[in-house]
């Protein structure tokens, strides 16, 4: 009997938490996968190497119902090699704003701002790789881009 009482108490304690979770369900973010290899391999004589891009991936955002707006930030796990720049462009959901093409680095930077509540949608991501001749030859490398959805200030 004491065990049953404890169990009932536990269930009773869980109910309010479950209720709050339903109302304050955190916004979620997911991506469709990884972009393909970004490979710079040519140039027009007299100019810097030709940049390459990839627009094959998307992100999906779900902000739920809380009366607040959200931003998405992006950052790299490590700096890019000298002379090499990775930019990202993240299309915005309705009612939000994309900051456009932005150079990615180890600082979390806003890429989409003002995502309203009740937003559940999927949008394109475009990565672009550029390099100057001073970058030299860069062997196959990877960087992790972390996208984070945060409550707008």
């Amino acid at each position, binding site marked *: 009997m004491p*065990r049953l009482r*404890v*169990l009932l*108490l*536990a269930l009773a*304690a*869980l109910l309010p*938490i479950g209720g709050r*979770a339903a109302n304050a369900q*955190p*916004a*979620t*973010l*997911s*991506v469709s*996968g*990884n*972009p*393909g*290899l*970004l*490979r*710079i*391999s*040519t*140039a*027009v*004589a*007299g*100019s*810097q*190497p030709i940049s390459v891009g990839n627009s094959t*991936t998307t*992100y999906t955002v779900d902000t739920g119902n809380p009366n607040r707006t959200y931003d998405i930030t992006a950052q790299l796990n490590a700096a890019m090699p000298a002379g*090499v720049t*990775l930019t990202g462009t993240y299309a915005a959901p309705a009612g939000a704003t994309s900051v456009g093409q932005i150079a990615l680095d180890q600082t979390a930077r806003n890429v989409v701002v003002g995502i309203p509540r009740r937003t559940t949608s999927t949008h394109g*991501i475009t*990565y672009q*790789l550029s*390099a*100057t*001749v*001073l*970058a*030299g*030859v*860069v*062997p*196959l*490398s*990877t*960087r*992790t*881009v*972390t*996208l*984070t*959805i*945060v409550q707008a200030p």
Partner: protein
Amino acid sequence: MNTTRLLATLALLTAATAAQAQTATQTVTFQVDAINQIAFTGSPSLVINSATAGSAPASATASGSWAITTNQSNAKITASINSAMPSGVTLTANLAAPAGASSAGATTLGTTAVDVVTSLTQVAEGSLNVTYGLSATAAAGVVASQSRTVTYTITGGT
């Protein structure tokens, strides 16, 4: 399950709710290959048609331009022509060097490739001057209009 364990479980449940995945990650893979590009513009025409009495015929010159992009170090440009010049006639090329490189100056062109610019390191530069010179001795005689193809090659970068 005692009360302490129950509270701990509830705390974990609450924390899990607050820490639900709000991030997503992508792996971006990239590389930059060795890039060596040169381009030349212009099809210069060179005519020798005068001399100062008592001297060899006056040389002729013509200009063009060239451009380069390389992301390697210590590359060089060689030049050659597709067939030998007539006896007594000499064709030279003089390429202006981009920043940090060295020009060999006016260099006689033949069917064997010769260095015309060296020490090319990580440079992207255009509108560089190239000057062709044509000279002939009196012994060359009259040479009918003809053409040569100059082949420039960028090589040797590391």
